């Protein structure tokens, strides 16, 4: 897959339009997933992805191939999402689902474990969407997509120090939501489970 993408990217850089379309087909769902995680909205994610591919197409000559095409596209998507969120400037408040704790860590074992994983993902997704957009962007890019601090800072237009501070704050908030203390909503079950 990675080799295929590298070949397609190389052909696209040489001006092959069909190769770029092949790249889009191979990566758009992944780009959409990242955009959705960053924006928290299907509609916004669609716009961000469209913009990201346009930028990628126009900037293809600048893609040197030292990173994978996916990583390069993630950075462009993050940059587009940051620009989009700044433009949008409207807060979104999602209701968090705080019913139960994550349960099993071995999803491959049985259907119950898979269901538990799906439930955990749903809770984590809700917790992520409950974060302010700037904080969510940093934790998603670092802890989900494994981008280096320096790249995250550049794409979001902030200093590396600020990116780290946001990351640590985001982790703290997520932990508090995923593992609420006793006395907080959902705290009894979680405290027992940990």
């Amino acid at each position, binding site marked *: 897959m990675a080799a295929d993408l590298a070949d397609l990217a190389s052909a696209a850089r040489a001006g092959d*339009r069909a190769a770029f379309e092949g790249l889009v087909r191979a990566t758009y769902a992944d780009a959409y997933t990242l955009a959705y995680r960053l924006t928290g909205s299907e509609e916004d994610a669609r716009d961000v992805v469209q913009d990201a591919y346009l930028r990628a197409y126009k900037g293809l000559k600048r893609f040197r191939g030292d990173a994978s095409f996916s990583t390069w596209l993630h950075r462009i998507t993050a940059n587009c999402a940051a620009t989009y969120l700044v433009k949008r400037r409207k807060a979104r408040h999602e209701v968090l689902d705080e019913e139960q704790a994550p349960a099993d860590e071995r999803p491959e074992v049985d259907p119950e474990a898979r269901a538990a994983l799906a439930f955990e993902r749903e809770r984590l997704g809700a917790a992520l969407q409950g974060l302010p957009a700037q904080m969510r962007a940093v934790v998603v890019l670092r802890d989900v*997509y*494994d981008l280096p601090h320096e790249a995250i800072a550049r794409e979001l237009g902030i200093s590396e120090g600020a990116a780290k501070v946001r990351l640590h704050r985001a*982790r703290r908030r997520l932990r508090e939501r995923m593992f609420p203390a006793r006395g907080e909503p959902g705290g009894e079950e979680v405290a027992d489970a*940990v």
Partner: protein
Amino acid sequence: MRCEDVAELLPQVVDGGRADPSVRAHVEACLRCQAEMVQYRKLLKALHNLRTEVLEPAPGMLPGILASLEAVGERGAVRSLLSGHRAAYVGGVAVATAAAGAAGAFLVVSRGRRRVRLAS
């Protein structure tokens, strides 16, 4: 060192961030901070696992992206075509000007020779 102070540092310590030895020593000896550290590790693992999840975009999204790329490609083609025409136009004007200049110079020279011949 107090748990409250250590708690501030756990989000950066959890994935290998630099930490004062006194922080590590506190965590090793404190069950409460160890429990928090375990929660952070679980959180990071759950976040990392999200990477394998790919959401399904709406069916019209791919055609939309391809259509917008097509439009950009066409605009680019038209632009390069126009700039090619412009270059040809400018080139044509330059050649015509040069030709007109050469013709003018030839006329002036030939009239001058005729006058000279008539005078002699």
